[in-house]
């Protein structure tokens, strides 16, 4: 009976907790996305630039069109003005920005990302959603592979190092940890130099050779070949620091009293590792795994630029160059939602994994 009551109380608390967190996260996304919309407009500067651009493009188009050659200049100017007005109306630049910003916000929150103003996907679609989805696999493939490799390698190596703490291997990892001060693109430059120019065995950039191979197997192999250098760059820049921090983390936890106790009891190493070190540290491990997963999504503008990789980072860079507000906002909105979703998942996972959070109450 008491067990059932306890369970019920647990669930009630969990529910209340979930509700509160959801509300807070929703507000966070709302404010974050609205700020992005404001920033993407840069205090009206983007609108001015776009007005100039429209004016220029329309007059060039009208002047260059032989059909309008024999018009008088007045007629032509009227035509230009009409076209400019149409374009302004299409982009809704005639409305005050504040109004538009709330409209952007409303639609962004509903994940209706709208149409891009200048850019289009390779298949010709103007929908922001399509443009983003088209680039997503490239980013996920590259960053997913690299980060998963780094994560599993570092946790595994760190565990074995924490067992052999103080060994030559351990000390060399500590000594190498500062090498992670340089970002991945930096190692990328060196790798390109080495493997694409000094010893030309790998491509220096891109995702697939041109023209792409017909055979799906060859296509896959070719993508793999192009992935090798960027993945290696990311791996090199992150592996030592992650091993170092996981190793320190495991060392701190393996000096807890209950671990000493387990050792004193003579339990086998494997069991101690699984039950006494990994189980209590599961929540931080899960956290960093999930945070890594969102890190994936945003990609890295510069690494993608250096390797000419057609992913989201490159997309965002191009969108900023084209001053294509819907695409910029769209990328950030999706990022914000994924971040919030991850944070929410983490909260729930914590509550499940760690009874102190759930039962601590207020």
């Amino acid at each position, binding site marked *: 009976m008491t067990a059932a009551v306890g369970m019920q109380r647990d669930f009630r608390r969990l529910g209340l907790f979930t509700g509160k967190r959801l509300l807070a996260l929703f507000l966070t996304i709302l*404010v974050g996305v609205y700020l992005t919309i404001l920033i993407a407009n840069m205090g009206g500067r983007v609108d001015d630039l776009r007005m100039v651009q429209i004016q220029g493009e329309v007059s060039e188009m009208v002047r260059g069109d032989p059909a309008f050659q024999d018009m008088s200049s007045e007629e032509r100017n009227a035509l230009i003005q009409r076209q400019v007005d149409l374009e302004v109306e299409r982009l809704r630049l005639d409305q005050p920005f504040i109004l538009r910003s709330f409209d952007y916000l409303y639609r962004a929150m509903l994940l209706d990302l709208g149409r891009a103003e200048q850019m289009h996907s390779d298949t010709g679609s103007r929908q922001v959603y399509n443009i983003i989805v088209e680039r997503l696999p490239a980013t996920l493939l590259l960053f997913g592979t690299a980060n998963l490799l780094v994560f599993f390698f570092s946790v595994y190596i760190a565990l074995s190092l924490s067992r052999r703490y103080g060994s030559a291997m351990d000390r060399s990892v500590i000594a190498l940890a500062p090498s992670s*001060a340089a970002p991945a693109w*930096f190692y990328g430059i060196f790798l390109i130099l080495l493997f694409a120019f000094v010893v030309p065995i790998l491509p220096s950039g891109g995702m697939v050779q041109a023209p792409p191979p017909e055979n799906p197997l060859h296509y896959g192999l070719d993508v793999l070949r192009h992935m090798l250098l960027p993945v290696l760059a990311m791996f090199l820049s992150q592996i030592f620091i992650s091993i170092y921090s996981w190793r320190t983390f495991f060392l701190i936890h393996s000096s807890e009293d209950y671990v000493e106790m387990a050792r004193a009891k003579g339990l086998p190493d494997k069991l101690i590792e699984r039950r006494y070190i990994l189980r209590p540290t599961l929540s931080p491990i899960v956290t960093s795994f999930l945070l890594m997963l969102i890190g994936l999504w945003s990609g890295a503008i510069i690494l993608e630029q*250096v390797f000419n990789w057609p992913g989201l980072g490159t997309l965002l860079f191009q969108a900023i160059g084209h001053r294509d507000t819907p695409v910029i906002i769209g990328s950030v909105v999706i990022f914000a939602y994924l971040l919030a979703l991850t944070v929410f998942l983490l909260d729930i996972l914590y509550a499940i994994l760690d009874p102190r959070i759930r039962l601590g109450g207020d």
Partner: protein
Amino acid sequence: MGRLSSALAELRNYPSAIIGLGIIAFLVGLAVYTVVVIPYDDALDKWRGGDQWRLYPVNASPVWSDRLLGGQAPETKVVSSRDAEIEREAFEGGERLSIPLRVDFQAGDFPSEMTVFFDADGHEREPFARLVWRTPDGREMPLGGSRISRQDRMSISQDRALEQRLGLVPHIGLLATPDSEPGDARVQTGEYELTLDVIVFEENADFEAELVLYGRVHGLAGTDHQRRDLMVALMWGTPVALAFGLLAAVGTTITTLIIAATGVWFGGWVDATIQRLTEVNMILPLLPILVMVGTLYSTSIWLMLGVVVALGIFSAGIKMYRAMLLPIRQAPYIEAARAYGAGNTRIILRYMIPRILPVLIPTFVTLIPTFVFLEASLAVLGLGDPVLPTWGKVLNDAQSESALYSQYYYWVLSPAFLLMLTGLGFAMLGFALDRIFNPRLRTL
């Protein structure tokens, strides 16, 4: 402060900290030296490029890299008519000058370019010059003649007619052995002479000429596509990188710390607001915002610094500091401070923040290279400061000129090396400090 100084003394036990400190000391020394030797305005002026670099070769690699690989590539040789024995022969209405420009060429490779610069000031009627090239084995090759305007140059390398005649690019053909074929030309070493037969139509007017055999190697750092000596950028990149990294790290750490302490001290809605703002800030992507500011406003490094600090105020660090500060809030010494009537500001600034400062020093030190690389990243994206020479801008130039494809490896390697050195120096010191100041790591 006793704890701080004893901790610093402990640094001596960590070799990596000593190396790190050494690197930082070297960089700071280099920065100070640079600022003293090449003043700010001077550096900007030099980096703008232009005619001041006309005597420098295009894309020459550093001397040491060539010598290390066993090369004997030539350095730039300049022979001026001021040092030559000029034969003068006056005639009615003018003067005939014979200027022998002698150059002793001993290098193992051909020059990269050949040009003669003239400086004929104050002539009413333009003088006329005829050039003859004489090789060590006595062959004579006329290089044609032309009228010389006030500041003139004669690019021998681009003389198509001469190239046709020699069958080789002029700056190779003129210095090659007689039996040289295209693709297999060998240098003939020895003393060459360029004789200028000049007819000047005025007496007492200046006439100066300079023969420049552009080298294939230059100095410690080499030159770029605009003939600029990369040493200027490599040296000036140091103070810029250090200043940017330090200011950004100080700016973000201090503001974040004060805000975290304020939130913890007042608690309630202040704390809640700060927490929510931090979460909002986590959603805002830093780099895209910087790119936007860069493309729309200005790419000035100081504006970028401002944006970085402004966006760093509510960074994720607040959460960490808050966790550290929460137990301090209840500490008896704070109670004591309240009892004597200390105000809120006093408690936050004098009692709470100093308490966690030592723990922050390692984070602070490791933050510096992050910002140094951020600046470089922006420059690589083409958003570097428009006027200041920085390491990132050198990398960007190299990338846009396809330096790797053209095998100008020095162009990429030297700024990258300096960036790496900075990153390593601060990171090594930071890691050692972390082990000293972090009580839980201490016992390990």
